[in-house]
Structures are given as C-alpha cells and as structure tokens.
C-alpha cells in the first residue's frame, strides 16, 4: 500500500506507532503511512504478547485449561470463563443448578460493567482527558472489591467450575451489589454531564470513524462495534444461553455508525447490565451451586463443538474438537477484538492521526485477547 501511495507522488512518510505508545494500551504496533497528518495506510502488527493459548488447550486437561480463560481478556475474564464452562457442560450434558446460573450471570455482568468503565476511562484518556479515567476507576474499584470477596481475585478470575461454581455467595455480597448499583446510578449522570455532553468530546467523536453495518459483516465485527452500526445482534438475546432468556433487558443499538455511537452503546450497556444484576438479585433462588453429578474426569464424546457467548467486546466463540480423551484435540478461541481490529486498516484510511487514534480507542482493544 505504501508503494502505491508513493507511486502517486504523494509526499508520504512512515510512522511507527507502538508497540510502546500511550494510545495503544498494550503492545499493539501500527505501521502507519502518513501524508502529513492524514493516514494513508495503517497496518496493525500483532503478536507481541502471543502466548499460544490454543496449544496450551491441547496439552492440558479440560479442568486445567480453566485458568487460561482469565488471561485472554483480563478486563472481562468472567465472560470467557463462562463461555468455556458452558462449552464443556454442553459437551458433557451437565445441568447446572439454577442458583449457580444466576450467580454466574450476576458476576459476569458485574465484570462487564467494570470492563466498560475501564474502557470509558481509557477512551477519554486517548482523547486527552485524564480525570474521567480516575472517576471510572473509583467505581470500578468497588466492583473489583465485590468480586474479590467472592472469587478471591481481582482481575484474572477462575471462579466458575464445570457444573457450578467454586463457592457460594453470601448476603453481604448481594447487599454490596445493591449498594453499588445505587451508587453507580447516581454517578452515571455525572459521567454524562462531564464527558458525554462535552462539546469537545462530541466534536471528536460525532461522524468520526464511520463503520457501516456491511463493513462490520465483511470483517466479522461483533459486540458494541456492531451495535453501534445499527445491527441489533447480541449473543445473549439472539443465541440465548444460561438464564438470559428469563431476564428482561434491552440491547442498545445506535444507527449513527460513528465513534459516538459505539461510545453510547457501551454507556447504555452499563445501564442494562445494572438492570440484569438487579433482576438476578431479586430472583435468585436458594439451592445448590454445584450439579449433583459432575464426572471427576472430563472426557467428552468424540466430535466437535462450538459455543459462543457475548463478552464485553463482542462474540467470544470456542470451537473445540474432542477425540474422547481428557484433553482437547483442538481448541480454537475466536476472540472478538481480533476481528474488530482487522477492519481498522480499511476504516482508518484518510483519517487524521488524532481521529484514527480516537477511532482505535472506540474499538475497545485488549491486546492479550487479540494475540492470545
């Protein structure tokens, strides 16, 4: 692409963005070809923290692979845990007790809120505003404290088990959740006043980084990126799993296709996740948290299986091939931001550098998940 630009006698230069750069939030590298401040071509270069999780899946038992799930996307680890345990339960035909399902959904949604809050802060940081980051961290810290009190860890959770949970939640946690929701509800208007309504932010986001629904489809983009392009697709609604069909929540969809739409989708998703958590607390039944009969050694039937869940960043899918042994024959992890980032090269053409970085922020990248 750079050669093409050069042949048109444009005065272009190459700019190497990353792997150490404040805006890439990790070790992503983007090879930019710039014409002044305009991006002629942007080629993401991946693999700086590639850890070959898929190979690890092939030489560990099904249960031993669980901790890996928390290390793909360290910001919404529980969604990935959920996807994996549900896949294994699907293969083994394990019925999960209802209480466990409610706790799983509750904790996953808490994790989704914390992930979106961190994205919110980091995104505004990309745009040059520092303070909202720390306000968001303040709220996120409450979630981490709550999750720590049940799961024992703050980031890389390993809480779900095949057929249930590691341990039960107590009333303190549930009242803590209720209090937190009350607190976050009172904070959301502040976020909207300070950030959403800000004229500078709107100028930087409205009509910047347009991605059409067709482009999303061609690139396999999912999650808030897709919903910001006016496509009403959420795995929780469209391919229901766990107890999501029993819960009442909306899928926020914006038709503007710009960075602002993606921003608004995530902010609205925080509200919807709060609704889900409230319902989970209200409807949570008493009972066991582990299925009565979970085989000690997981040996799924021969065949291949697929399961998808809605992680904070889009559709997380696992395709696994079992040869009847206690280890997977093949474990494919389909990471949402991998696909979401792949459209960056086409979509960022002709953007200003500042806009391209704002656009990249709006994709909500988590590099360990892209590199796996």
């Amino acid at each position: 692409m750079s050669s093409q630009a050069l042949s048109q006698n444009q005065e272009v230069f190459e700019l190497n963005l990353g792997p150490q750069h404040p805006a890439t939030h990790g070790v992503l590298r983007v090879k930019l070809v710039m014409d002044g401040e305009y991006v002629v071509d942007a080629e993401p270069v991946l693999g700086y923290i590639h850890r070959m999780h898929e190979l690890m899946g092939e030489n560990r038992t099904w249960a031993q692979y669980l901790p890996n799930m928390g290390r793909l996307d360290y910001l919404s680890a529980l969604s990935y845990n959920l996807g994996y345990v549900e896949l294994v339960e699907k293969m083994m035909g394990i019925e999960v007790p209802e209480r466990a399902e409610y706790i799983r959904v509750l904790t996953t949604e808490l994790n989704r809120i914390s992930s979106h809050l961190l994205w919110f802060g980091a995104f505004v940081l990309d745009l040059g505003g520092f303070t909202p980051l720390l306000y968001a961290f303040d709220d996120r810290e409450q979630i981490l404290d709550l999750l720590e009190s049940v799961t024992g860890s703050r980031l890389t959770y390993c809480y779900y088990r095949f057929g249930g949970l590691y341990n039960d939640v107590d009333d303190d946690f549930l009242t803590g959740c209720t209090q937190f929701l009350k607190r976050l509800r009172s904070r959301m208007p502040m976020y909207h006043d300070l950030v959403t309504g800000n004229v500078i932010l709107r100028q930087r986001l409205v009509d910047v980084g347009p991605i059409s629904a067709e482009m999303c489809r061609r690139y396999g983009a999912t999650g808030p990126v897709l919903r910001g392009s006016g496509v009403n697709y959420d795995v929780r609604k469209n391919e229901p799993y766990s107890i999501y069909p029993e819960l009442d929540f909306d899928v926020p969809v914006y038709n503007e296709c710009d960075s602002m739409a993606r921003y608004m989708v995530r902010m609205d998703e925080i509200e919807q996740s709060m609704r889900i958590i409230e319902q989970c607390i209200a409807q949570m039944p008493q009972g066991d948290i582990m299925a009565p009969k979970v085989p000690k050694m997981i040996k799924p039937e021969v065949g291949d299986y697929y399961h998808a869940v809605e992680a904070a960043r889009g559709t997380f899918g696992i395709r696994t091939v079992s040869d009847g042994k206690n280890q997977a024959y093949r474990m494919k992890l389909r990471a949402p931001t991998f696909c979401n980032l792949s459209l960056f090269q086409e979509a960022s053409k002709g953007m200003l550098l500042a806009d391209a970085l704002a656009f990249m922020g709006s994709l909500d990248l988590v590099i360990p998940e892209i590199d796996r």
Partner: protein
Amino acid sequence: MNKATITTQLRALAATGMVDEPETAPAPVVEEVEEGAKKKAAPPAPRKNGLLEVDPARKGVHLDVQLNGDQVVAAAQALDAEGMQLEAITGVDWINDNELELVYDYSYTGGEFFRVVVRARIPRDEPNISTLCDVFPSANWHERETYDFFGINFEGHPQLENLLLPEDSDFHPLLKDFKGC
C-alpha cells in the same frame, strides 16, 4: 438470509464435490461418533463430504458441511450472498489420516440464530487451498493466523506473512508433530 436456500445450495455444492459417493452416503456423524466412543475402537474414519443438519443445542451450529478444498470459495460466495458473516477460520491437524482440516465458521447477525460450519480436508503434504480474502476481507487475518499455526498455504492471499508468531519463525505449533522450539 434464507435457511432453506443456504441448505439447498450447500447441499448441492457438497454433492457435486463427491465424485464417487452418492449424496445419501454420509451417515449422521453423531451416531457414528457415539459408536466409536463406546467401542473404544480405533479412531473413526474421516468423514465423507456432505451436509448434516445438527442440533445447535449440542453442537453449537445448525449446518455442518464438508466440502472439497476447491469448493470453499464457492460456499463462501453462497453464504456471503445470503448475508452471513465469517466468524473464524481455523485448522485441525488429523495426523493419523495425513490430512489437514480447515474449519470455516459462519454466523448470522441479522436476528435469527443460524450458524454454519464449512469444512474441507486437504492433504497434509500439500497444504494448499484458495483464499477467501476476495469474498470476506476478515479472512485475511484468520488465514494468516492459520498459516502461522498450521503452515497452510492460502493461494492468492495478498499478504501471507506471520501474524501472531515472530516474523522469522519457521515452525507451525499446532501441527501435532510439533515438538517445541
């Protein structure tokens, strides 16, 4: 998106690919698999080409199609025309059959729950298959990743370089005969 159209098209595609076998030949894989598991016999023989309608609650997909290697582009075009999106491309190394399997996952984001998986088996010694980049741009990175891990050569790919592995690596870690580096 029309499920019936997709099913018909893919079935026809699978049928044309089968030179020796009649269309009715492939038995439902699920049963075959269960037998194999019960008997603890030698691993089941590789599946024949064909289309299976499987239970999504158990398998996670609705249609499971196995095609010849040269038909995946046609299948992708048929699915693209129906508005499906390519979710992932990956490979499986069937070292005992001396074959590599390519797995293409398609999903539909328009509302209905519909997932299709297209597979193709290619010989392990000559891992060549044509690229989907012209149909789905998302295939670009997925194919580069598969090239990284399996060394599969996607013919016609615009930039078949290592994506996740280091630029100078010459190993393919997901091949079953990979012994660390």
